């Protein structure tokens, strides 16, 4: 029997509200479990190492190229107006206000988000999460809380690191074209950076980190049975977190501009 369009739309709206309610319950459980003992410090440190330290090579490469290319591409436009000396200042504002947290978050969403989604999804379909539960361990606390906290702590640190590496890339490009010392580059780069820029950047990265962890864990922990479910969890973890990161970027920029 063919279902009417009205029926299909109504089912989809129902599904959306059910999904939103599930997300709400998941987040509520996270905030409850994060406060209640026992605390999984050992696993949290392990996750911070896996998420933070193991992402360094990729983040370093991406950050460096971002700074280098952004400087190279911006030079002709500024040089046309005789403003090439403003380059360090322009680049640093762009990197610290937007590029460092955004690039870090997008890289982490691809690398860490998919890894969390696939790992938890695989554990779910092979009953490893059930096995953990029956052996007297709270799997939500052990697997979900530690991963969300680790991304929330590590992404801001990685974003600060990305900013430094991107500025290094920019410096390399600047020294190729002009006689500039490192100290004058740094001085020029930092002269227009305010505390609000740094603070909002770190807050934004923290928000992105929480989003990556929460989305990855939610998708993996709630993945359906079978290998298809694992693939879907990994894929959704990346797509949904990237989408949310851009939404959050827009919202935070609006708030910061209003404060500024």
């Amino acid at each position: 029997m063919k279902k009417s369009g009205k029926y299909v739309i109504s089912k989809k709206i129902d599904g959306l509200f059910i999904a939103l309610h599930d997300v709400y319950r998941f987040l509520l459980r996270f905030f409850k479990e994060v406060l209640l003992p026992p605390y999984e410090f050992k696993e949290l440190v392990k996750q911070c190492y896996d998420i933070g330290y193991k992402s360094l090579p990729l983040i370093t490469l991406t950050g460096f190229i971002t700074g280098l290319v952004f400087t190279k591409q911006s030079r002709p436009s500024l040089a046309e107006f005789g403003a090439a000396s403003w380059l360090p200042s322009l680049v640093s504002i762009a990197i610290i206000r937007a590029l460092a947290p955004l690039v870090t978050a997008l890289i982490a969403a691809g690398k860490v988000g998919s890894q969390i989604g696939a790992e938890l999804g695989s554990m779910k379909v092979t009953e490893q999460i059930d096995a953990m539960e029956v052996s007297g361990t709270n799997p939500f606390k052990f697997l979900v809380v530690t991963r969300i906290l680790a991304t929330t702590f590590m992404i801001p640190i990685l974003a600060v690191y990305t900013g430094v590496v991107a500025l290094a890339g920019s410096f390399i490009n600047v020294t190729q074209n002009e006689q500039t010392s490192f100290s004058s580059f740094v001085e020029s780069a930092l002269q227009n950076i305010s505390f609000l820029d740094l603070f909002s950047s770190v807050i934004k990265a923290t928000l992105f980190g929480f989003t990556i962890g929460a989305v990855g864990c939610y998708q993996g922990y709630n993945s359906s049975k079978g290998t298809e479910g694992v693939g879907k969890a990994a894929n959704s973890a990346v797509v949904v977190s990237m989408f949310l990161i851009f939404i959050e970027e827009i919202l935070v920029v609006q708030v910061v501009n209003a404060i500024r």
Partner: protein
Amino acid sequence: MIKPTSPIDPSTHPISIVGLKKSFGDLHVLRDIDLELYKGENLVVLGRSGTGKSVLIKIVSGLLKQDSGTVNVLGQEVDKLNTNELQQLRLKIGFSFQNSALYDSMTVKENLEFPLVRNTPNMTRKEINIAIEDVLEGVGLLQALNQMPSELSGGQRKRIGIARTLIMRPEIMLYDEPTAGLDPITCIDINNLINEVQEKYNTSSIIITHDLTCAKSTGDRVMMLLDGRFVRTGTFEEVFATDDERIKTFYNYNFTS
């Protein structure tokens, strides 16, 4: 709050289930289940795939909640327990999963010490190592100590899965399809292991299976589950001494295939 004492004596009946019902949407999986597990026995729950056998032991271990009925495990009603009480009860229940459910990212040793380290914080490293070697020796896989689960065969994974539950010295063992997907020789090994566990650790077990050879060699008592209800109970021979076509078909198909 002091919970009312149970009328069922847990020292003689580690598990007692009355009027258990469980549905998933419109699908009525368990319709009206009554079950008594006696102390020290191996009880086999036999039935076709998809008849709710695994759902039954997942309810017993608190992984799923029943729609109605009472599930009493070691004198406690499982669905009435809070998280901490359930966690404590689960330490007395060993659950061997169909696909072993070993933690992929950990070695055999780490798999075995995981429940031990987390639930017995007073144990020294030496005591933990002795306990690990003891259970590994018990399942005949001492040499696999530092291997990853991916390096083990299906039968070895089952054995390690059973060892991981035994390390907590459970009073009750729940086996979910212990011989599924294994070759006949390995099936015999696993069946022998289940009997050895019963003798050595004095466990009371529910063995979920559709494998008649497993049921015959491990079961002190067999319960046949059909259409969400137990239709026959007794020894293996008693269960199949019937004119019920559904049971005869199940028997014939199992042995002729």
